[in-house]
C-alpha cells in the first residue's frame, strides 16, 4: 500500500518530499561509492533491489479479506546498511508511480519516507539490537524484516492521520482508524516477508560467504559460523 496520487494536501506532500530528499541523495552517493570501492558486491546489491521489486509487485491476500503487499526493504538494509535502501526503494516507487498508477509522484516523498527510510532503519536497528541480546541470527533477521515492514505501514497511517485529522477525535483518532485498516491486513504479509528474508539470508550464508565477508556492513554477524 502506498498513499495514492494527490491524496496528500500540497503542503504535506512538499514537506515529506523535503524530508526524504536528503536521505535519497545521501543514499545515491553511498551506492556510487560502494560500486566504486567494492564492485564485486554489485550483483548482490542488484539482487537485494530485485527482492524489493518482486515483493512489492505481489499483492497478497490477507486474513481480513483484503489484500496488500510486502516491501522487501529489510533484506538490503540488513546486508548493505539502511542508507542504501533509500535509493533502491525510490526506484521501486517511481516505477510503480509512473507505470502502474500505484502510489504517485506527489506522494512519492511520503512513500519513500515510510518504505525506503523508516522501514530499513527499523530493520537495521532491530537486527543490531537483537544481535546484542545474542538472539539466533534467523530470529534476528525474521524480526528485523517483519517489523520493518510493519513500521512502514505504521508510518503511512501516521502520515494520513496528520493530513486528515478526525473532526471529533483529532490526529490520534484518525491514526487509530488508519492503522485499524492496515495492521490486521499487513500482519500476515509481514510474517511472510520475514520468513522469505530468512530464506535468502540462509542461502547467502551457505553459498555467498566470500561476498558477505567483503561487505563492510555487519560481516561479523552474517558470517559467524557459530550461530544459525
Amino acid at each position, binding site marked *: 500500500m502506498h498513499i495514492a496520487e494527490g491524496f496528500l494536501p500540497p503542503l504535506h506532500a512538499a514537506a515529506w518530499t523535503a524530508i526524504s530528499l536528503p536521505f535519497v541523495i545521501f543514499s545515491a552517493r553511498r551506492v556510487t561509492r560502494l560500486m566504486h570501492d567494492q564492485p564485486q558486491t554489485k550483483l548482490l546489491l542488484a539482487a537485494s533491489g530485485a527482492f524489493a521489486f*518482486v*515483493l512489492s509487485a*505481489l499483492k497478497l491476500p490477507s*486474513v481480513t479479506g483484503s489484500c496488500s503487499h510486502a516491501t522487501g526493504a529489510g533484506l538490503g538494509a540488513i546486508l548493505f546498511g539502511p542508507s542504501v535502501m533509500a535509493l533502491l526503494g525510490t526506484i521501486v516507487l517511481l516505477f510503480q508511480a509512473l507505470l502502474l498508477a500505484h502510489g504517485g509522484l506527489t506522494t512519492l516523498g511520503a512513500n519513500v519516507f515510510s518504505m525506503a527510510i523508516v522501514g530499513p532503519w527499523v530493520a537495521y536497528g532491530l537486527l543490531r539490537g537483537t544481535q546484542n541480546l545474542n538472539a539466533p541470527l534467523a530470529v534476528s533477521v525474521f524480526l528485523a524484516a517483519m517489523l520493518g515492514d510493519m513500521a512502514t505501514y505504521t508510518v503511512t497511517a501516521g502520515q494520513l492521520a496528520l493530513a*486528515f485529522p478526525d473532526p471529533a477525535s483529532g490526529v490520534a483518532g484518525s491514526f487509530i482508524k488508519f492503522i485499524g485498516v492496515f495492521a490486521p491486513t499487513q500482519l500476515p504479509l509481514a510474517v511472510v516477508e520475514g520468513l522469505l528474508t530468512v530464506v535468502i539470508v540462509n*542461502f547467502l550464508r*551457505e553459498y555467498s560467504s566470500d561476498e558477505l565477508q567483503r561487505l563492510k556492513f555487519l560481516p561479523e554477524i552474517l558470517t559467524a559460523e557459530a550461530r544459525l
Partner: protein
Amino acid sequence: MKAQNGWLLLLAGTLVVGSVLIGSHRKGAEFAGSDGQAMEIVAAIQPGYQPWFRFVWEPPTEIASGLFALQAALGAGVLGYYLGFRRGRARSRQQDRVDAGH
C-alpha cells in the same frame, strides 16, 4: 540450511493459502487493496476532499496487471540469476576440491 529453508518456504506458502481461505469466508471479501480502503477512510473523515493531482499516466486495467507481472518478473529474474549463479559457482568449487584431492 536446506531443511530450514524448506520449512520456512512451506510455512510462508501455508500462511498465504490460509489467508485466502480465512479471508474469503469474511462477509464482502473481495480482496480489494488496503490502499483503496484507506482512501475510503479519507473520504469519510473529509467528505469534500478531492485529489489535487492526477496520475501522469494510468494504464488500462488489463495492461496494469501485465505491468505488475513485468515488475515481478524483472525482480524474480535478477534474484534467480544471482542465486543460480552463486549456487553453481559454489558447487563447481566443491567439485574442484574433490578432483584435486584424488
